[in-house]
């Protein structure tokens, strides 16, 4: 194969990869969670390691303390 042909193949592969990523991303979002896992992300599996609000696992740092304070106020 000449280099031009290689280049065309490479570009096709990159485009295919991008399309795969976008399609699988959308499909992943649309697929409902399997049975028994609906509330799994709300409970204990979230992390407070960093303050990245856009992360799917973001949990407010002091949420436990906030809850406690609310209880005390009541």
């Amino acid at each position, binding site marked *: 194969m000449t280099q031009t042909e290689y280049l065309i193949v490479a570009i096709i592969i990159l485009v295919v990869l991008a399309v795969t*990523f976008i399609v699988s*991303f*959308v499909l992943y979002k649309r697929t409902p969670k399997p049975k028994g896992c609906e509330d799994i992300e709300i409970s204990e599996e979230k992390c407070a*390691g*960093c*303050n*990245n*609000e*856009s*992360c799917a696992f973001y949990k407010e740092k002091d949420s436990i303390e906030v809850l406690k304070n609310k209880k005390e106020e009541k």
Partner: protein
Amino acid sequence: MKREKGQTKKNFLKGIIQENPLLVSILGTCPALATTKSLEAAIGMGILFTIVLLCSNVLVSLLRKLIPDEIRTPAYIVIIATFVTMVKMFANAFLPELYSTLGVFISLIVVNCIVLGRAEAYASKNTVFDSFIDGLGMGVGYTMALCIMAFFRELIGTGGFTFGQIFTFIPYTALIIPGAENFKISVFQNPAGAFIVFGLILAVMAFYKNRKAEMKAWEIKQAKLKAAEDAKKKLEAQKANVGGQQ
């Protein structure tokens, strides 16, 4: 929409102090620990990072009405990867020493949470100018945080600072404190030192935050006590008044 006065300045400063990406939000820790061996490398990393953040913020906010909501994240990742490739080639061509020192960590800007986080949280909702200022503030804040870490690591680890090894266009200068070679702690140049310095900086930040909260609680308590006392005095005065009248 009318702009408030001083909003731009506020927008710029929040990235440096209140929302510092490294010291407050604890984002982008990987390059912060790996590239802070020397002050020069930290500055270089900070500059490259700022360029990527600025470009991606501006482009994302330019395209914010064109990109469908559902495929936002993939589009941002591709945009950021493109800019990182450009910055990588730029560094390879003009600053080869910096390129070889930082190594794979230039590529790793792609997966840095700060760039993607700012694109999603800020640039996708705000105007081009605001996003530019936000990116500049965040970039400068990150660079300053890197410099703070590198300052302590290089000072304690080697006993001074050397310049001119990575940015070859400035003359080579070594500012070593006389007699400090005998007292340097070389573990601070090793990976373990990075963890220690970062942990101690975070502890100092937490200490001041705790103290501030305690002061505030104390002030509130004092104000409450004073208010209660005042009310008591008033009541007594009233009683005395009533007694006097009788």
